């Protein structure tokens, strides 16, 4: 029994890695641009569908397809911020929520119109079924482990980028005070757009991992958004390592919930989120 529980917790932690991948991009846009992109999950799903087309129609290996897509997601994020989101950034909260909400509905329905409503999964080959047996009833999938390690690596890299590079310093300067940043000659609109481009890259990476590890369909976006949001809020707004911790909490809660009944998985994740949020509204690692 203890072994089974330990196994569930470990599976939950690994699942949390996937959720943290969904969430780091949202965490960046919350931390830097100070808005929640309602279309965050839908854009990830959009990239997953693009990868599906590249792998199944053109027969490219997923790694190559992802390498092709990442520069595009950077450009997509850049243009999205520059052409659309920047226009409403200074306005009311209502405006930014509504624009990203409208975008979410458009992406979902465009995907449904193009690809149909079927559930998809990109075949990942041997890595999907490979497992490491640790004994004591604990088995670790190679794919979930890879995803978890990638999440840790991505958080580490983004943290270095923000706090150890000139670009990071510029992004933080614009985020702290747009007016002063403009005053010292920073092009805030451009820097925000670059930050959103980086968010786009994180979306591309999480889309690739999502596409091989979980089923997705055109309406999968909102559930990804909610999980990512919970990870961000639990971790503390703007804290990247906190987001990883938040993702793990939601992952473990879902994994243990699924033990009782398959239908309890999602509900358990939400309930644990609400409980932790009520006890610690500022998050685990507030900035």
């Amino acid at each position: 029994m203890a072994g089974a529980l330990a196994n569930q917790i470990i599976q939950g932690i690994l699942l949390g890695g996937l959720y943290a991948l969904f969430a780091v991009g949202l965490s960046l846009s919350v931390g830097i641009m100070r808005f929640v992109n309602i279309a965050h999950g839908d854009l990830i799903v959009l990239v997953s569908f693009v990868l599906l087309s590249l792998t199944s129609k053109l027969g490219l290996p997923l790694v190559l397809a992802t390498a092709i897509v990442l520069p595009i997601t950077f450009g997509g994020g850049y243009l999205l911020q520059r052409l659309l989101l920047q226009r409403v950034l200074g306005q009311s909260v209502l405006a930014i929520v509504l624009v990203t909400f409208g975008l979410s509905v458009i992406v979902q329905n465009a995907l449904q119109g193009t690809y149909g409503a079927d559930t998809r999964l990109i075949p990942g080959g041997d890595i999907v079924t490979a497992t490491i047996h640790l004994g004591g009833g604990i088995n670790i999938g190679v794919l979930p482990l890879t995803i978890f390690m990638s999440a840790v690596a991505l958080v580490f890299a983004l943290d270095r980028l923000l706090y150890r590079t000139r670009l990071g310093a510029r992004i933080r300067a614009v985020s702290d005070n747009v007016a002063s940043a403009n005053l010292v000659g920073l092009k805030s609109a451009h820097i925000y757009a670059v930050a959103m481009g980086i968010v786009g890259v994180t979306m591309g990476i999480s889309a690739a991992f999502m596409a091989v590890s979980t089923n997705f369909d055109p309406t999968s976006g909102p559930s990804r958004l909610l999980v990512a949001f919970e990870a961000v809020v639990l971790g503390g707004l703007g804290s990247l390592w906190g987001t990883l911790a938040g993702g793990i909490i939601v992952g473990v809660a879902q994994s243990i919930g699924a033990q009782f009944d398959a239908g309890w998985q999602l509900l358990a994740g939400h309930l644990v989120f609400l409980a932790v949020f009520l006890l610690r509204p500022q998050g685990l690692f507030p900035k």
Partner: protein
Amino acid sequence: MTSLTGKLPLVAIGRGLLGLLLAMLFAAPWIFDPAELQILTELLCLLVLAVMWNLLAGYADIVTIGQHGFVGIGCYAFYGFVVLAGVDPYLAIPLAGLTSLAFAIPSMVVVFRLRAAYLAVGTWVLAEVMMLGAGKINAFGAGLGVSLPVSVVRAFGGNIVERFTTIYWMSLALALVAMGATYALMRSSTGIGLTAMRDDEEAAGTVGVNLFRARVACFLWAAPFLGLAGALITLQKLRVAPAASFSIIDWTVYIIFIVIIGGVGSFEGPIIGTLVFFLIREYLQGWGVWHFIVLGAVSIAMVLIEPRGIWGLLRRIVPGDLIPVSHKPPRR
């Protein structure tokens, strides 16, 4: 003065159109066939939801994406009272509204700890929890849902025409009460504070508007109306089910589009939005998913071009509000 009198008829014409619309609504059971009456009933329910979302998002700065949660609670509560508890069907409707209110009170602990865009997603999480929770209750058919028994349905009319007419009158009454009461709320001192908040939240706080109290009042105000609409919606759909009763598309996505396109932060907006939505749905329904894309694109364009929607555009030529929520400054 001449230019003013030259423009005055526009307000009068607008009010005339509203009056005509109202007259048509009162005459509807004699003009329309049951199928048309059912569409009208549905539109009235959407109007109620739109008025409430407008009150929250347009005035109280509570941009919720979780409105469907309270509608669904109303649906389930109506079924619970009437079928499981055996309450009189007509009494179960107001009880459904009260149940939504009862759920709104603890929800405030979460909602009012989140600000701005976080609140939007937070309300969505709450609605998701309500839907998933409802899907776990076996007495309500768990994930599949359950139909209303024929005996309950019969309580609202022996045949289909009679029943549709009864439900129509109840929906019209609900829409008029929701609008009338919200109008009265907006004209009260709380409402003046809300209008001030809409225009400038910080400034309103500075001059002594109790922002927190006003926002709480709006949140609790909206909930029972959402529940009442849920009960009437259940009477039309004749069943409750997690996905349909807590439909984010029907009770939140469409509603947001209605209010944004019609005009957020005005009393005319939700009415215009509901009419436009009806036209778009009737004429673009054959387009399938593309009608969503049109709605989404139009609302984004609206936010960018005229955040106050169609009414905001019209208001540039129409010199006054058709339903004046604000008080006129005293003449000197």
